[in-house]
């Protein structure tokens, strides 16, 4: 009898002590917000384009972290970003719905600009400068190519141009050998099959 009592008391005591430690730990080491959101957000290309159906990269990251959104909605991120998010979330990769387009920049035809500032308000990264009734212009180096400024323009003076390839940013292509091509074809087949 005393044996059973001793076991109950000691185990109960341990459980209580562990509970107290855990409760304190929960209070002391509490992390504000969801660390998963930050991690996913860090993988996204930050174009803030909204092609995923969410108003920006952060909201999409939050939706993925909550399990509401699939991992394959980021169009500019492409295959690579999708795989990284899938790895992080521990889910199977899914094929992309849209192929990423070539990187673009917005360009304002200044002669036609009426200075309405609507594009400035639409730009998610503050890459357009200008003032009311003055020409606006895009800082090409800061533009993410999200196209959000095109829609609000009342005179349609914004073009999306393909970003020119700089000789400094050129990189060697994959060697044109059968084995290199075979590897590429296999990877593509694999990506389509998932």
């Amino acid at each position: 009898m005393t044996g059973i009592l001793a076991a109950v008391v000691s185990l109960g005591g341990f459980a209580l002590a562990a509970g107290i430690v855990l409760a304190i730990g929960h209070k002391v080491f509490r992390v504000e917000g969801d660390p998963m959101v930050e991690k996913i957000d860090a993988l996204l290309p930050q174009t803030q384009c909204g092609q995923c159906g969410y108003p920006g990269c952060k909201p999409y990251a939050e939706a993925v972290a909550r399990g509401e959104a699939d991992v394959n909605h980021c169009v500019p991120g492409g295959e690579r970003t999708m795989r990284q998010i899938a790895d992080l979330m521990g889910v199977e990769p899914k094929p992309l719905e849209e192929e990423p387009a070539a990187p673009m920049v917005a360009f304002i035809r200044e002669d036609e600009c009426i200075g309405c500032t609507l594009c400035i308000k639409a730009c998610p990264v503050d890459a357009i400068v200008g003032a009311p009734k003055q020409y606006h212009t895009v800082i090409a180096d800061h533009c993410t190519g999200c196209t959000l400024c095109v829609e609000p323009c009342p005179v349609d003076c914004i073009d999306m141009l393909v970003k020119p390839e700089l000789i400094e940013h050129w990189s060697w292509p994959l060697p044109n050998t059968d084995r290199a091509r075979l590897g590429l074809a296999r990877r593509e087949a694999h990506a389509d099959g998932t």
Partner: protein
Amino acid sequence: MGLKRIWHRLSGGVGGFHGGVDVPQNKRTADRPIEQLPLSPVLIVPVKQHIGEACAPLVKVGDYVRRGQKIAQAEGYLAAPVHAPAAGKVVKIEEHRIIHPSGLGLPCIFIEPDGSDAAETLTPWPDWAERDPGELRERVRMCGIVGLGGAVFPTFIKLVRDQHHPIETIILNGVECEPYLTTDHRLMVEQADEIVAGLAVLRYMVGAREAVVAIEDNKPDAIEAVRAALARAKLTHARVVGLPTRYPQGSEKQLIETITGRQVPAGRLPMHVGVLCQNVATARAVYRAVCHGEPLTERVITVSGDAVPNPGNVRVPFGTPVRFLLAERGLTDIDEVCVIHGGPMMGEYLRSVDVPVAKASNGLLAFHSERVFSLRQQEQPCIRCGHCGEVCPVNLVPNLLADHCRNDAFERAEQYQLFDCIECGCCSYVCPASIPLVHYFRYGKGQLAKIRRAEQFAEESRMRSEARERRLEREKQKKAARRQRAKQLARKTDDAGGAD
């Protein structure tokens, strides 16, 4: 490490490096004296001929320029200005294809030489020893001097007296380990005195005590000539070292290891082990700039290969079209010919010969296509023989690296020190499965650079986006506060009105 260093001292300072290959030398132009190339009808001068930022043109179409006049000005720090290679008229400034594996172009200044030798030089400073090293450094910078071994890194950047990293040894690189090339060889034989004078200037600028001229032992005449020039100049603590012929002995970090026994750590510079390494042609250019006030406007190029009827070493003004240069050496029909810029190990295949010669051009090799392409085998699976790792001068594992690059596992490749690869081509040379290893590494490096750029851009965009959100939030609060105040004011006036 200490023992290793002592061993290096005991063995005469020549210990070699890991790996490397013995390649057929084919130095067929070794006994051909340097000839001056006639001026081409038009010179196409790219505004960027160095590693770093492009220069901005200083001249307009229609301007008359004299030889040595600065025609493009460096804007950033890491840049070297460009000078007119000949006197003549600027006929146009527009984008033109340059020597680059991409086949892309850069703005080029087109000059039509008029044949006069109107030249513009700076004041010669034969009294350089009484001048401040900083002043000399500025002269080297203004004369557009870059590393002429092929890397074209602006020379003045290396010429600093850093109290944390004092330069003890200055090494002049006259190794020229690439097969076929004989430009440095001929320069050492013919201009040894100017090279030694350049060495003295460089040594004074960095305050080094010891000076070494490194030459491979397949060039005994060059060793002899430089040794005699050193004796004539009465330089103290200066010597010529004959090194065993082994590719890539002329690679900067390998050469430093051979001469001093010190390895330059990954991601560090020769400066961090107390060494300054310069090519012999660069040393001569420094001498011409300081003692004669001449900017860099021409260089020596080896034209060789089995398709060239009249191979040789020629002094070529920058901007000379490759087609003109080959025609001058008797090669006019280039249909069935493969032209390589640089040496056969590290050089690149030229897709077009309508490109101008630039500061980086140390050789042009033309081979009959059927000969080159019959040697190019199709890539086969790796048989894990390990030869590539044995010959790698930086102790990498090329077969695994190539696998990672082929499978787009670039982060893995980076963990295997992809960026330490010097692209010497030893692994590709020995691979029995004909795997284009170096090509895979270049692909991997380029893709990694792209990924890094995208990450950085994303980070900047995030910061801008967050700053914008904070600003919008602030504005919203301000607006709300204003509305609140207006409401209170209205209520107050209402109350006042009610009391009346």
